[in-house]
């Protein structure tokens, strides 16, 4: 089966890379699913969760990551997800995210609240 190579990179590290059969991400104009053979694409990502359905060497399964804004570029069956901050759902400390969410709500810090919500959603989608 055809597969596409995914690179999920944050500004200061490579978060995940491997083979996948489907990647679902949220762009500014709505959710988009990319499968092998998709047309070359460049999109702006919204803060949200990205679901990667892995295949081939990476094994069958799915990887969920929280992405706080960034880009998606796809060409020649290679997909790059670029984000200033990106975390795998498995890495997210749920309790800490919950605490951060409460703190952000009480401080009415909209940016922090959104970040924490994105993390919680990514964990829920895991």
């Amino acid at each position, binding site marked *: 089966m055809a597969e596409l190579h995914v*690179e999920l*990179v*944050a*500004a*200061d*590290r*490579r978060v995940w890379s491997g083979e996948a059969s489907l990647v679902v991400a949220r*762009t*500014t*104009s709505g959710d*988009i699913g990319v499968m092998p053979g998709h*047309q*070359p*694409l*460049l*999109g*702006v990502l919204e803060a949200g969760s990205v679901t990667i359905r892995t295949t081939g060497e990476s094994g069958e399964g799915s990887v969920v990551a929280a992405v706080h804004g*960034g*880009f*998606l*570029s796809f*060409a020649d069956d290679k997909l*790059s997800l*670029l984000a*200033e901050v990106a975390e795998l759902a498995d890495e997210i400390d749920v309790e800490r995210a919950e605490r951060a969410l409460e703190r952000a709500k009480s401080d009415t810090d909209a940016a922090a609240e959104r970040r924490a919500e994105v993390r919680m959603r990514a964990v829920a989608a895991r």
Partner: protein
Amino acid sequence: MGAKTRVYKRRIKSVKATKKITRAMEMIAASRIVKAQRRVAASEPYATELTRAVTAVATGSNADHALTTEVENPTRAAVLLIVSDRGLAGGYNSNAIKAADQLTNRLIGEGKEVVNYIVGTRGVTYYRFRERVIKESWSGFTDNPTYADAKAVAEPLIAAIQAESGAEDGVDELHIVYTEFISMMTQSPVQNRMLPLSIKETAEESAEVIQDNIKRGPEIRPLYDFEPSAEEVLDALLPRYVESRIYNALLQAAASKHAATRRAMKSATDNAEDLIKSLTRLANAARQADITQEISEIVGGASALADASAGSDR
């Protein structure tokens, strides 16, 4: 103990204390280089992927974007100089400042007005002392820069370049001067033009390559879909590109600073060792001179006594 010997002993003691300090600084710097190098390497995937994406948009769309097109008569150029907050790093700071001076002179020669942006206390004091105007400066993070620091630096620069040409705070070009980390032993100051777009190492070449690609147009460019549109993707992409370039420059400058410190402290330690050796020689000679003098005094005194008693016997 003679007065001379005491002076030498005291100097040896103080040089030894200094040597201990420089040795410690050398070791600290050595361990920091490794860390800094690792951070440079870790930031690379993002930078390369981003560069690829920028190239794709620049070549794959006819979008006429403020950040990619050259202004016909550039009149103002921003120069971002990255040095460190502290000295004790040999020629590290002065080399970077010299490179910035060269660039400034060249730009002025081309009839452009230069706007200075500076990272690092050392550069700020140098410019202040010469009473040059600094548009904006940052300090406090040069040893260990984070992405948030790079964002803070990039923000006014992006605003300046996006401003209308001829506007009060607008600039037409953006140059960056920092010290490139080539290896543990070699770091060299580099001057790059960051905007209008230059993707490869040398600004002029790459700008031409992109221009050529754009001109040749449809036959070679892959048909990219832009989500939501080419203009909006460029709008979002180019600030990130500038940030990531500045982040990379900050990291490289930090690694270079640590390498320069290590080298400077190593030679300071070596010099201290040489100094201790020669001072020990001098101290030994002085001690020997003291002993010789004492012996000759004793011998002289004894023979004087012997002479005196021989005289009284007679």
